[in-house]
């Protein structure tokens, strides 16, 4: 919409954005998984992913982003909340206090000895909620222009 009224040449931004988008997303996923023992986690990872999405939004426009990534961010928020609450709730069925997490060491193919922790599912919920909320807000402002 904007580009019709004011044609600008943003080839550099657009080309760079496509590459940088993936770099940011990969870094955010790394941050997300790092979160359990080191700095990082669902909130920061989610914010970084949404910043990547905002970069796409800036370089192109909201219509393009919608065709490329047809995601309903409100549903994403709901899914995230459901995952987070579900992981907290599971301990109730085992007669343990709410929010108690379970973890164990597993031997995974290729990755070797790894600990798996239900907290990662909780964090995944947070990750989705953060992306969902941020993008919903940005779209609410952006779309009405």
């Amino acid at each position: 919409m904007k580009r019709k009224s004011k044609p600008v040449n943003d080839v550099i931004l657009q080309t760079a954005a496509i590459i940088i988008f993936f770099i940011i997303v990969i870094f955010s996923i790394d941050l997300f998984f790092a979160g359990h023992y080191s700095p990082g986690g669902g909130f920061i990872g989610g914010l970084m992913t949404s910043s990547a999405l905002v970069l796409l939004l800036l370089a192109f426009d909201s219509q393009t982003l919608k065709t490329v990534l047809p995601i309903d961010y409100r549903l994403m928020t709901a899914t995230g909340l459901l995952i987070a609450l579900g992981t907290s709730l599971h301990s109730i069925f085992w007669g343990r206090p709410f929010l108690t997490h379970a973890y164990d060491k597993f031997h995974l193919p290729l990755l070797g000895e790894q600990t798996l922790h239900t907290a990662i599912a909780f964090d995944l919920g947070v990750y989705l909620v953060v992306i969902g909320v941020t993008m919903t807000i940005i779209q609410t402002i952006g779309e009405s222009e």
Partner: protein
Amino acid sequence: MINLPIFPIVIPALAAIIMMFMPKRVVIQRAMALGALVLTLIVSLFLVHTVSIDGIQTLNLGDWMAPFGITLVSDMLSALLVTTSTLLTLFVVWFAVHYFFESYEGNYLYVAMLFLLVGVNGAFTTGDIFNLFVFFEVFLMSSYVLIVLGGRGVQLRESIKYLLVNIIASALFVMSVALLYSVTGTLNLADLAMKIPLIENQNVITAIGVMFIIVFGMKGALVPLHYWLPGAYVVAPTPILAMFGALLTKVGVYSIFRTYTLLFDGNGTFLQTFLMVLAVLTIFIGMTGAIAYNDVKLIIIYNIMIAVGVILYGISVNTQTSLEGSLYYLIHDMLIKAVLFMLVGMMIGITKSGLLRDMGGLITRFPMLGWTFFVAALSLAGIPPLSGFFGKLLIVSGGMDEGELFAPILVLLSSLFVLFSVMKIFMYGFWGEAKREYDGPLAPFAKRLVIPVFLLLAVSVAYGFGAEWIHPYITQAIEPLVSPEIYIDAVLKE
């Protein structure tokens, strides 16, 4: 069932999250919201029963030991308030089902209402002061959504002020928590109650206490901090106003109740005098507003302030009798304010005007509405044996026992002003001749709308008539506040 205290928080949350997946399926949303609330009500009644038999229930989230992890504490005070707020949310949602149009309900209305309840129940249940802040934010966020729903110009304009006040209050809350943590090194209420008396420089605690009273007073509309209340509440649609008026200010009052009795009552008389002066001023300004306005919503809104003042006066006296009175009056006021707000909302919906001079003669066409309002008005003013009476009686006698005279008389006088202000609505609104044909949007639905209001009023009347039967519960709720050792032992057991 060690997880019992969490259920009144989790059930509405789970229902709200599932409802987020289908914002436009209004019928399913209504059914789910009502179902979840009924379930929550049953669970919270069971919680009251359990607490009355087994004493204070605590839950250490994630199995982290008490002073270090997040603790939920359901003593009788919080269990009773959780039950009351769930009950009235149930009736308000029932009212809202008939009140709103489908297009309005499709905007995450019930989701926000349930999340509001999550926050309120959480704030009542939580056992540490930082989570009090978190749950405050949960219900504030929902209240922001509820207050802007509809998006009329006036609504948005007032929402900005509401938001601004609350953001600043929240920042102050964080600051107070930070200061408290720096002095004591803990945020668990029970642990704080144990450590605060050991601190040498009690003046620091007094300063922090004042900050907390400012923070909670902003939510509870204490006098110098009440300026946002009338404007923000008057623009909200009726069911939402009923929830706000009945729940939000009361959470602020509850927080003062809890923190003042548990943490800040041991250090001199300054805080007590401070709270007492604010309470008296609040009653005074509330009285002035209640008799001054001609707008029915504003009259009831100023009545909130009178109630807050009366309850806080009882807290500031801080004896077993006066605290029992405060709690009794708090629960009464939550029920009756919801009833009254729904009733005046119906009056406005029928007459298409909020001003008393445009009303009149409503009782000939809507007798049920009129008599419901009459009983609710008497109950609010505290005519025995309706529910408003016993709370005030206990507060006044508690104050008298401490040798006070001025404030108890003001409390009694406030009843007179309350009676005057609501009878003004009754006389000008329901008596006399109808000024014109009332064709407001709610007129055809009045019969259906009045049912939940009537039932909630019936609960409130039963609460008054059953005062003798409820009294043991109230006494049990106040015991841990008067002697905090009970609370501390329950939380930090072993």
